């Protein structure tokens, strides 16, 4: 995974609410190893429709996704993040996410930006009017700059921000606290409930 700092790209819109991870990565590709290019399976079934956004030439290389409410809800499959990442997507902008997807994203170098619905709507409208409209996502300053130059601040958990900026190996980091964990285990003994 690459560290995330700042990114300027056009964006591909998936405006519908409640797009679930079964759509992003259909279950029949769940047994593929991680080093398989998961970009191949991204929205594999929805892509069968000729007018699906990913089929538009201008949007094929977009590195930002604009999503509807509750984007990537449902199954915990991290493969949905891998599909977006392998396709080249590095940031999603949506009003809200499925919890587990948002957590999985930051552990894989994909930034899930939360912006108010009206702002996301305006970005989708701008993108539909001009598929090449450029959006900048800047993590250090926590801002999204729209094609019209308007700057929108977003919130992100400080630890998640650090994970993304440093491409932090969280497990290695946690194991620097191995002594705290061992102390906890000594204190609770075998059972803790």
């Amino acid at each position, binding site marked *: 995974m690459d560290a995330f700092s700042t990114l300027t790209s056009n964006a591909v819109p998936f405006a519908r609410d409640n797009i679930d991870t079964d759509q992003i990565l259909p279950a029949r590709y769940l*047994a593929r190893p991680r080093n398989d290019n998961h970009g191949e399976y991204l929205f594999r079934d929805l892509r069968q429709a000729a007018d699906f956004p990913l089929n538009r030439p201008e949007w094929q290389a977009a590195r930002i996704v604009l999503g509807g409410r509750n984007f990537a809800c449902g199954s915990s499959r991290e493969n949905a993040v891998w599909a977006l990442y392998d396709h080249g997507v590095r940031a999603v902008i949506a009003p*809200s*996410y499925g919890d587990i997807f948002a957590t999985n994203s930051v*552990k894989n170098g994909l930034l899930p930006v939360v912006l108010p619905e009206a702002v996301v709507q305006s970005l989708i409208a701008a993108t539909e009017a001009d598929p090449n409209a450029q959006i900048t996502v800047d993590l250090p300053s926590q801002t999204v700059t729209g094609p019209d130059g308007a700057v929108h601040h977003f919130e992100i958990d400080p630890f998640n921000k650090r994970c993304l900026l440093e491409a932090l190996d969280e497990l290695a980091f946690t194991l620097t606290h191995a002594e*705290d964990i061992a102390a906890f285990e000594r204190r609770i003994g075998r059972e803790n*409930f």
Partner: protein
Amino acid sequence: MTAETMFEKIWNRHRVLEREDGQTLLYVDRHLVHDGSAPAFEMLRDRGLKPRAPERIFATPDHYVPTDTRDVAAIENDEYRGMVESLEQNAAEGGFALFGLKDGRQGIVHVVGPEAGLTQPGMLLVCGDSHTSTHGALGALAFGIGMTEVAHVLGSQTLWQRKPKTLRITVDGALAPGVTAKDVILHIIASIGAAGATGYVIEYAGSAIRGLSMEGRLTLCNMSIEAGGRAGMVAPDETTFAYLQGREYAPKGADWDRAVERWRALASDADAVFDRDVVLDGNAIAPMVTWGNSPEDALPVDAMLPDPEAAPDPARRAAMQAAFAYMGLTPGAALTSLGVDRVFIGSCTNGRIEDMRAAAAIARGRRVAEGVTAWVVPGSAPVKRQAEAEGLDQIFLAAGFEWREAGCSMCLGTNGEIGTPGQRIAATSNRNFRGRQGPGVRTHLMSPAMAAAAAVAGHITDIRGLEG
């Protein structure tokens, strides 16, 4: 002392350390693992690590197992067989317990945990699967995690979490005949929406909830994730203790008495404050059926389909139009007018013994309608044995249902058991997403009795019109 919710009591007891930025390192008591977890073991191996606390890990294959044989070598598809075999290998290398395909305890991980007594009140339990919320039915804090987090738990027995908010959903009243836990949770999701509980841990309370059996509470908590909830919980009580006592991994003797005493203290304090409260009337709940591609698209079975054109919000209208097209629906038609091609009774939502009994009560003395294929897939090997001891398999077989081996089966179809495009399926599982049961397949969620009724009638049917 300040009043605490059950969630806060469990959370506080599992804090290893807290960072200034609000992240908490939590200790994991139980880690359940299934046959889709291979990538996590790969991540661990890449770092030269082994599972830190194998005695806290329990595994069983469910997602990739066939439901017509118990022989791993007989799985023809290399990918599926590979997933089951890699779990066996990881268990052997990691030194943790595996309830394999021929073990009498195998089953869907969320059926197996409570059934084996592995899930206990007050525990922090995780699994790399979103329906881990199921286990909260026993008063545990249980939630699903992704593969990187699974690797993190394997390697450190801990997890970084930011404290979620708390939501209490109170359902008071008496459930009408024919109304089950499945109808209660579909009603809740229809009321608060598929993202209604995002960012929250749900505690279910009220007389209608307390009146549910353990099986019913498991069904209820299972679908918390379908409302966006991180977890769902029910306070442990006599129902919980009676269910757990004597199970393989439950405490025994004096340990049991001490445990029950601790568990009694877990319930939320009377004056504990929740971040949000939702109150629903249990008396008003009818048997529910979903019509669309989100579990929030649920209606009482005797309702008419809505008209997408009448939806005032343009986004909602577009979503409804897409769902109507995919599901092959006509605005204004009666839900009961929808014919079904297949029926699937099973899954971690409704694959327990009570579900088998409820479906069998409808199947008894009836026949599956001409042209309908109906499957009953027990959630675990013990459920299957128990059902057979009660003669339920004979009732199903005599009625023309197929009686299969335990596994996830058609809930997700990762073992290859899927429908064909355009088929309409009455299912007792938890997701009616597009393509969930196969590309182009149309899924309607409902309770086991309702699914059995759909099988014998050949169309969606109001259970209240049938005598059990």
